[in-house]
């Protein structure tokens, strides 16, 4: 699975847009990009997944450039409750019926009032 690199931490204020960029230079052709959110002492929660260009859901947007060597998770108008660790994962979408998720070091987002 492709190795990912994210900032260790980020600070923001309520109401701002937050963009977290993940580098994955060795992404394979059949790899998808998935983001998870984790609150302290809770299980990771799926946020968004994409392959190329832009994906948007009710929670976030995911921007993937043409070379797919990086991706940016965009959280619009964050609130205090968005304070969490955000993980970028890269791997084949079809995890071969039980394939593992490899969590690298996530980004600890701190939203301040």
């Amino acid at each position, binding site marked *: 699975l492709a190795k990912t690199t994210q900032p260790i931490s980020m600070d923001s204020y309520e109401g701002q847009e937050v963009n977290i960029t993940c580098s994955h230079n060795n992404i394979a052709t059949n790899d998808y990009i998935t983001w998870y959110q984790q609150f302290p*002492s809770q*299980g*990771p929660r*799926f946020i968004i*997944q994409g392959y190329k260009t832009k994906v948007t859901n009710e929670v976030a947007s995911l921007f993937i450039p043409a070379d797919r060597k990086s991706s940016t998770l965009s959280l619009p108008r964050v609130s205090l409750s968005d304070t969490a660790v955000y993980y970028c994962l890269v791997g084949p979408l079809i*995890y071969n*019926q*039980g394939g593992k998720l490899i*969590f690298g070091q996530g980004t600890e987002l701190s939203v301040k009032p």
Partner: protein
Amino acid sequence: AAGVIQSPRHLMKEKRETATLKCYPIPRHDTVYWYQQGPGQDPQFLISFYEKMQSDKGSIPDRFSAQQFSDYHSELNMSSLELGDSALYFCASSLSSGGIGTDTQYFGPGTRLTVL
């Protein structure tokens, strides 16, 4: 919507004791995964099962074993517990039908194991 259920939520054991963690996947999900997250660490994959058969294995100690039962629930058995086994243990489930998006893993609330 129904989520992954894990029990117990908290467990305290002495060194060298045995512990059993249980996981009940989302209804109709056929794949179960176990992850371990130590204090200040990222989740680490332990083992997974698809249709009651082990499908992938990570850094799971030989002292640990797991299985998936006919009703798709799974149990993680941990023997000869060590202080270093103190961690959050997450179970996740997915529906591996081969379609787009169907392999998204949904995590349970976790079991916090404390070994004294």
